[in-house]
C-alpha cells in the first residue's frame, strides 16, 4: 500500500477537485467536507511516507503507469521532499479548516465550488512539484499550481484582478524560462529524469548550453518564488487575494519554489557546479543580502498589515538563499529548516491578518489600536509568529537563523552575517511597531493618555472556533518546531543534505 502513496498524494486532491465541482452543482454544502477528506488523506499519505523514509533510510520510487524511468515519469520521495510534503499537507489542511468562515465573508456563495476546486488544484500542484522526479513533470505541475493561483487570487477584493493579471505576466515569463531551461537540458542530454540527469551532466559542465539552461531554470523558479528583484508581482497579488488564499499561497508556494532550487542546484546538478565552477551561490547570496535589506525597509514603509507581511516573505526567501550561498552543511541545514519553519511562521501571520480582517474589517496597522482587548487570543498568536520571525528562542525562527549564521560564519561570508543580524533588528522594529499598537497603543494626544487607565475588561475574540483552533495549532507548531528542531535535523535534514 505504502508504495502507492507518492501517486496518491497527488492524485487524491486532483480527483477531489473534480468531485468538488460536481458536488457543487448539486449541493454547495458538500464542497467543504470533500476538501477536508482530500486534505486529511494527504496528511496521512505524507506522514506515512516520511515515516517510511526515516525508518527505511532509502527513497521511495514510484513509476507512473508502470513505465520505467528514464522514459516514464518517476516520483521519488527522499528525506528532503518527504519533509516538505508533510509540512505542505499539514499547513494546507489547517488553512482549509480556517478558510471556511473567512470565505463566507469574502467570496460570494455561488463561487464557492469553483473556489474549493481551485484550492485543491493549487495543493495538487504543490504536492506534485515536491514529489516528482522528472524535470518536465515538474513544469506541468508548476503550471497547474500557478494557473490555479492566478484564478484564485483574482477572486479577491477590488484590484485583485489587476494584481492577478500582473502575476500572470510574470508567472508566464517564469514558466517559459523554466521550460526553456528544461528544453536545453533535454537537447544536450536527451533525458528529463532527475536521477538520470545527475550522472550525465558533469561531463557537460563546461558546455555553454548547459550554463544557459541552468540560468533559465534558476530565473524561472526565482520568479515563481519571489526572489528579489523578481518579486515585484508578489506584494500586490498576495495582499489583494482573499484571506484564505494568501494564508495558503504565501507560506507554501514560495517555499516550494525554494525546495525546487535546492533540488536543481544540489541534486540534479552536482553541488560543485553552482558553488565552484560558476559563482551562482555567491551571486544568489548577494542578491539575497540586498533583497533582505530592501524588503525590510519596504515592509517598514507599509501601513497595510498584509502587504507588510508580503515584504517579510521576500526577506525570508532571502534567508533561505543565504543558506545556499554559504554552501556548507550548516547553511543548507538552516535553509531547509527555514523552509519548514517559515511555512509555519507565515501561515501563522497570514491567518492572523485574515482573522483580524474577519473581525474588524481592516488591515491598516494604525487601526489595530488596543486590539488585544477585543482579540486576546489572536493577538497572542501574532506575538508568537512575530517573535519567531524576529528570532527569539525557543521559537522555531531562531533555530533556522542560528544554523544560517553558523553556515555564513563557516563560509567566512562576513557580509552575509552582518546582513542577517541587521535584518533581525529591522524585523524587530517592524514587528514591535505593530505589537506596540496592538498592546500599548501610543496615545495620539496627551489628553487621552490617562483616559484609558480606567479598568476595561477584556472581551474574548469574536472569531469562530473553526478559525481559532487551526491558528492555535499553527502557533503550537511554531513552538514545537523550535524545541524539537534538533530531532528534525538529526532524523531528516541530516540525510537530505548532499555531500559537498
Amino acid at each position, binding site marked *: 500500500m505504502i508504495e502507492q502513496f507518492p501517486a496518491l498524494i497527488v492524485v487524491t486532491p486532483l480527483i477531489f477537485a473534480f468531485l468538488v465541482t460536481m458536488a457543487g452543482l448539486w449541493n454547495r454544502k458538500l464542497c467543504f467536507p470533500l476538501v477536508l477528506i482530500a486534505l486529511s488523506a494527504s496528511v496521512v499519505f505524507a506522514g506515512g511516507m516520511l515515516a517510511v523514509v526515516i525508518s527505511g533510510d532509502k527513497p521511495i520510487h514510484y513509476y507512473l503507469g508502470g513505465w520505467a524511468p528514464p522514459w516514464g515519469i518517476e516520483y521519488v520521495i527522499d528525506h528532503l521532499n518527504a519533509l516538505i510534503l508533510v509540512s505542505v499537507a499539514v499547513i494546507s489542511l489547517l488553512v482549509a479548516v480556517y478558510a471556511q468562515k473567512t470565505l463566507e465573508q469574502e467570496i460570494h456563495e455561488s463561487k464557492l465550488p469553483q473556489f474549493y476546486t481551485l484550492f485543491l488544484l493549487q495543493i495538487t500542484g504543490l504536492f506534485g512539484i515536491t514529489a516528482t522526479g522528472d524535470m518536465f513533470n515538474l513544469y506541468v505541475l508548476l503550471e497547474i499550481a500557478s494557473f490555479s493561483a492566478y484564478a484564485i487570487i483574482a477572486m479577491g477584493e477590488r484590484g485583485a484582478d489587476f494584481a492577478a493579471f500582473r502575476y500572470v505576466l510574470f508567472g508566464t515569463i517564469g514558466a517559459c524560462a523554466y521550460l526553456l531551461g528544461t528544453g536545453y537540458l533535454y537537447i544536450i542530454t536527451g533525458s528529463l529524469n532527475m536521477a538520470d540527469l545527475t550522472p550525465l551532466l558533469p561531463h557537460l559542465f563546461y558546455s555553454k548550453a548547459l550554463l544557459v539552461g541552468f540560468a533559465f531554470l534558476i530565473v524561472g523558479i526565482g520568479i515563481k518564488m519571489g526572489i528579489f528583484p523578481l518579486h515585484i508581482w508578489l506584494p500586490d497579488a498576495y495582499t489583494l487575494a482573499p484571506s484564505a488564499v494568501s494564508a495558503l499561497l504565501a507560506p507554501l508556494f514560495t517555499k516550494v519554489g525554494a525546495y525546487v532550487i535546492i533540488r536543481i542546484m544540489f541534486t540534479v546538478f552536482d553541488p560543485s557546479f553552482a558553488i565552484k565552477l560558476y559563482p551562482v551561490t555567491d551571486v544568489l547570496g548577494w542578491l539575497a543580502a540586498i533583497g533582505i535589506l530592501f524588503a525590510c525597509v519596504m515592509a517598514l514603509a507599509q501601513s497595510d498589515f498584509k502587504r507588510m507581511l508580503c515584504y517579510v516573505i521576500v526577506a525570508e526567501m532571502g534567508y533561505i538563499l543565504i543558506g545556499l550561498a554559504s554552501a556548507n552543511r550548516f547553511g543548507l541545514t538552516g535553509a531547509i529548516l527555514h523552509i519548514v519553519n517559515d511555512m509555519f511562521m507565515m501561515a501563522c501571520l497570514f491567518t492572523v491578518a485574515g482573522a483580524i480582517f474577519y473581525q474588524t474589517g481592516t488591515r491598516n496597522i494604525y487601526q489595530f489600536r488596543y486590539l488585544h482587548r477585543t482579540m486576546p487570543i489572536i493577538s497572542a498568536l501574532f506575538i508568537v509568529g512575530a517573535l519567531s520571525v524576529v528570532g527569539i528562542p525557543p521559537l522555531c525562527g*531562531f533555530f533556522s537563523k542560528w544554523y544560517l549564521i553558523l553556515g555564513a560564519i563557516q563560509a567566512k561570508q562576513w557580509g552575509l552575517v552582518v546582513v542577517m543580524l541587521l535584518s533581525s533588528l529591522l524585523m524587530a522594529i517592524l514587528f514591535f511597531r505593530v505589537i506596540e499598537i496592538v498592546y500599548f497603543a*501610543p496615545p495620539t494626544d496627551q489628553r487621552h493618555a490617562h483616559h484609558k487607565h480606567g479598568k476595561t475588561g477584556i472581551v474574548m475574540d469574536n472569531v469562530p472556533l473553526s478559525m481559532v483552533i487551526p491558528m492555535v495549532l499553527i502557533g503550537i507548531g511554531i513552538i514545537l518546531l523550535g524545541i524539537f528542531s534538533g530531532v528534525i535535523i538529526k532524523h531528516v535534514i541530516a540525510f537530505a543534505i548532499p555531500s559537498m
Partner: protein
Amino acid sequence: MEIVHSATPLVALIASLLGAVLILLAGAKRPNLREFWTMAAAVTQFSLIYSMLPHIMQGKIVVFTIIELYQGISLQLTVDSFGMLFALLASFLWIIVSVYSIGYMRTLNEHAQTRYFFCFAMALFGAIGVAMAGNVLTLYMFYEILTIATFPLVIHKETTEALRAGRKYLAYLLTGAAFVLFSMGLTYYLTGSLDFIAGGFVAGSGSQDLLRLLFVAFIIGFGSKAAIMPLHEWLPSAMVAPTPVSALLHAVAVVKAGVFCCLRVILYIFGPELLMNLGLWILLACFVSITIIVANLIALTQDNLKKRLAFSTINNLSIIILGAALLSPDGIRGAMLHISFHGFMKITLFMCAGAIYVATRKENISEMGGIGRQMPFTMAAFAIGAAGLTGIPPVCGFISKWYLCLGTLEAGQIIFLFVIIASALLDAAYFFPVIYNAFFKKTAGKTPRIKEAPVLLVAPLIVTTAFSILFCMFPDAFLHFFSLATRSVQTIMGVL
C-alpha cells in the same frame, strides 16, 4: 567534579512559567487568586532552588538536559555555585518584591495588573533560566526571554515617555543580543562547543586577534544589559516603569543578568589565564572604571530619586565587572558577593522610593525635606541601605567592597583601588544629602504626623534591610552567598 542528574532545575524554572499562565487565567476578575498564584510560584521556585543548595555546597553540580539539538549543542540547565548564587538571589527577592508589588499596584489602583504580574513571572522565568543555563545557547534563549518579558513592564504606564523608554530599551538590548548571537556563532565555529567551563574553554582555538574580536563582541552584547557606558542610556529612561519593576528588574534580575553574563564570559568562556595573555582585561577595566566615576558624577546632578538610584546602579554594576576584570581571586569573590549584596541594598532603596511615592506622590529629592519625620521606618531603611552602598559597616556592602579592594591589591593595580574608593566617596556625596534632607531639614509649618505607606510596602523593605545587616555580620548566613562565591573562585582558579 561530581554531577547530579536531576529534573529539579527544570521544575524550578517551570514554576514561574506555570505561575505566569495561571496568573493569566485568573485574570483581572479574580485578583486575589491571581496574586495567590504569584506568591505560590515565587515560594515554590525559591524552595526548589534552595533544595539544590546542599548538593552545591558539597561541591557537586546539578545538570538537566532539556533536549539535544545538533552536533554537541543542547538546551541544558546546569546549576553550579555561581549560577546558584544568582538563582537564589533572584528567586528570594522575587518573593519579597511580590508582596511589595501587590501593595504598590493595589494602593495606586494601577491598570493592566494582570499583564503586570504575568510579565513579572515571565521575567523571573528568564532570569532564573539565565542563572541555570549550562551553555551559551541556553543562556541566550533565556536572556532574550528576559528582555522581551521586561518590555511591557517598562512601558507599563503607556504614556509617550514610557513608550519612548521602551523603544530605547529594546533598541539597546536587541542590538546587544545581535552581538551575542554573532559571538555565539563564532565561538561554536572556533571550538565546536558552547558549554561553560570554569576557567574558560576558548583558549588556543583561534588567533589572538580573533579571540580579541570575540571578547569585544561578547562584552558589547552583554554589556548593553549590564549598562556599561556608553551602552547605559536605556537604564535611566527605563525608570519610568512602576517602582517594583525598577526594584527587582533594574536592580536585580535584568541588569544583574547582564553582569552575570559578562562574568560568565570573562570567567567561564575565556578564563583568567587567557584574558591575561590577551591583555584585554585592562581595556575592560578602564572602560568600567570610567563608567564607575562618570555614573556617580551624573548621579550627583539628578533630582529625581529613582534616576539617582539608576545611576548608582550603573556605577555598582561596573564595580562588579571591574572586580572580575582584575582576574584576581579576591576581586572575583568580591564581584560575586557584590552581585548579591548590592541586590539586597539597592532593592531596599528602590522600595523606599516607591513607598515615598505611594505615601506622598513625591519623586524628587528636593521635595523630600523632612520626610524622615513623616516616614521614619522607610527613611531609616533608606539610610541603612545607602550607608551599605557607600561601604560603611555593619551593612553588607562593606564586605563586598572590602574584597574588591583586596582584589585590586592582589592584582597589583593600585589605581583601581583609588577608583573604588573614589566611587565610595561619591556614593556618600549623593546619598547623604538625601538622608540629611529627610531627617534634618527644617520644614515650614508644624511637624507632620507619622504617615507611612501601607504595611505591604513597608514590611518588605524592612526585611531586606534586616538581611543587609545580617549579611555583614554573617556573610554566609541562610543563602550561603559567601561559600558559593568562594567555591566559584576556587573552581575558576583551578584550586578545587
